[in-house]
């Protein structure tokens, strides 16, 4: 089963507009949402995130998913500090993000003309993140099959690290629309870190692995009892938007 993409601002605004029109105290104009004489409030108008559930890939093809799982497992390798990026769910996180509003740049300014910019002007490409992954992964796969005879996931870890380092340094040529090798590497690195460190509700950071590693308590909310305990480590384990495993243990 797949989960719907996380919500976009526009859907929330649409819902709000539908809800409030019927409340209008001064409904003289068809499209306006007017409020007067009271503080507006509607029950059930909150908009919580929808938990990502494990299951079939939504955006990635099977081949893409295998490659991305291998990449995130080198960017965040398993060691004595935490599980690796694959086990932490980073690839699932990226898959669901690319299938949603983030993947399609729906909140960004995407009107042309598209001109090559200065470094101070930020990304000026026409491709959105979903398109950049599709093109970038295909180019990496073609490059490695030409050079090594096999794809990224089939390489030994040492060669995987060496290839990622070449990408990071821009020593591999990728199609310019994807942002080039460095641009694509930075995109994947950013998304992997988002997946590793964000709330587990989005599919990454399984078991709050990264939060336990750091000692970040997550959504604990109230630290008034510890603010004056200088130089004493905060004692409680992390909590996510979805709660904590300890809560359902007994």
């Amino acid at each position, binding site marked *: 089963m797949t989960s719907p993409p*996380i919500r976009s601002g526009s859907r929330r*605004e649409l819902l709000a*507009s539908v809800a*409030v029109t019927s409340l209008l105290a001064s409904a*003289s*104009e*068809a499209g*306006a*949402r*007017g*409020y*007067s004489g*009271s*503080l*507006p*409030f509607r029950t059930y108008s909150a908009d*919580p995130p929808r938990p990502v559930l494990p299951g079939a890939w939504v955006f990635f093809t099977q081949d893409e998913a295998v490659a991305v799982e291998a990449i995130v497992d*080198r960017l*965040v*390798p398993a*060691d004595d*500090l*935490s599980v690796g990026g694959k086990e932490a769910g980073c690839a699932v996180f990226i898959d669901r993000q690319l299938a949603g509003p*983030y993947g399609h740049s729906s*909140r960004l*300014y*995407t*009107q042309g*003309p598209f*001109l090559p910019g*200065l470094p*101070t*002007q*930020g990304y000026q490409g026409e491709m959105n993140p979903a398109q950049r992954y599709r093109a970038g992964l295909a180019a990496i796969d073609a490059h490695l099959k030409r050079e090594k005879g096999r794809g990224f996931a089939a390489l030994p870890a040492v060669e995987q*690290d060496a290839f*990622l380092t070449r990408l990071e340094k821009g020593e591999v040529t990728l199609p310019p629309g994807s942002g080039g090798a460095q641009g694509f590497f930075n995109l994947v*690195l950013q998304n992997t870190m*988002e997946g590793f460190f*964000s*709330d587990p*509700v989005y599919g990454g950071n399984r078991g709050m692995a990264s*939060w336990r*590693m*750091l*000692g*970040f*308590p997550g*959504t*604990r*909310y*109230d*630290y008034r009892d*510890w603010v*004056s*305990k*200088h*130089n*004493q*480590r905060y004692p409680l384990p992390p909590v996510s*938007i979805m709660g904590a495993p300890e809560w359902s243990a007994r």
Partner: protein
Amino acid sequence: MTRILPRKDAVIVGLGWTGSIIANELADEGLDVLALERGPWRDTATDFNIGYAQDELRYAIRKDLFLQPALEAITMRNNPSQTALPMRDYGSFLPGHGVGGAGVHWNGHTWRFWDSEFRINSHLTERYGAAKFAGLDLQDWGVTAAEMEPYYDAFEYLCGISGKAGNIRGQKQPGGNPFEDPRAREYPLPPMQMTYAPTLFAEAARTLNLSPFPTPSANLSGAYVNSLGVAMGQCTMCGFCERFGCANYSKSSAQTCVLPVLMRKRNFELRTECEVLKVELHRSGNMARGVTYVDSSGEEFFQPADIVLLCAYGLQNVRLMMLSGIGKQYDPNTNEGTVGRNYCYQTNCGTQVFLEGKELNPFIAAGSLGQTVDDFNGDAFDHGNVNFVGGAGINCIPTNARPIGYRPVPPGTPRWGSAWKRETARNYRSTLSFGCQGSSYPQRSNYLDLDPTYKDRHGRPLLRMTFEFPDNDIRMSHFMSDRSEEIARALGGRQHTTSRATKAWNSVPYQSTHNTGGAIMGTDPTRSAVNRYLQSWDVNNVFVVGASAFAHNAGKNPTGTVGALAFLAADAIRNRYLKAAGQPLVAA
């Protein structure tokens, strides 16, 4: 076809801090007030819900509460010889969106600008001579700190600011900011309980004979009932402040301080998801007839009004003036024009001290919970022997330790792999950060105008921003980096690193949402857009309120002054303009 609506006494564009304060004041005056807000209705229980408000990915990284560039982008370049391109995502600064505006997701640092800032040209000329700041278009604002004091006081008691006064009616107060101008009374609430890192910072600063004090904070140190009778709660230091709405009614905002009272007033109306396209002028050009706006269904309306108040984000106020033909567009070639000039920002540097074996618990934090040193801010120190004017507040205010964005590692650490992970885990809880928030002074080539190429969703030109850090400000910031190094050495630790300001302002990494100027207040109608009452020099029934009015930017966060200016404008309308409607309050 545009539908014509019944007249209102006053129409307010944007319902954030300034719009809500002024709407409330004018409703008290008995006026029939309408606010038009481009974004949605937002309130604590529904939109900053405690069940999911602490979501770094959604709010801090995907920027859920902010203005989407798809609705309105801004183009940028560093100098007039370049071609401006749109910031396709906002990065360096993040304008707000919806009811509450940027006041929803601010950190809460609440400063008063000093008399030496309001009178900057006169003050610096008297002390050093005008040659000291040649090339910088520093102008007096037309007000003094003493005149601003009651308005600052009104804003601080509306918010419930937690702090320690440094100067009450001329008497210096131990523990407060020794450099502030006289205030009428103490802050409404005492300072917040101090976390460990700012405590260490203050100890180190004192060994250097500096004067640290608790940063004035709109995160409340205790329960509070504000000047309008609205109750607020004590901050729990959850560390989700900047970029987030407060789920706990503990951060001052339009939602927590004004709207519970304002929304109940029968002579106030709010229309959300209504974007004002233009202020419509009478043929004479010196009076506005009202505004044209479009609602979310795409239908266009004309809203007649006797007074028009531009209370959007400062940059959007400036653009709306340009789109409406209010004032004369600034031209850097001739140095003439009133709208778009004196655009300023903030000149920052930062220090990280990698302590060993300390438990700083950096996630126990609030947006303004920390310590500030003002010994090198503004003109608090003698600039006779330095080659710049201005300065910076040195702030140790660890606002959060949210781990997508906050992962301090020493320079040279790889960005991924086992070594990256080891250093990330090693330094997360024991790195102390502080920063210098530096002044930003106007120069001729830093300005705002309309972009010739890129358009918004309605086909209107985007705002074009041309900005580079002036040489003066770079020199100031390097001086501050040196002072920061002294504090870092006093703090000790395994190692430390301090950034140094460089040329070419980069629009990508976040720096500050303190964009100021473009519609500045002043005494000269040929070099400022509004008079000392925030009334347009050109269109008598238009008032433009916000950081757009700052004639330059100080080394301080702007919101305290923005709030004070809202009270100033409301007072001017209530007690001056309504007695002489349609007339200029200052003779041009």
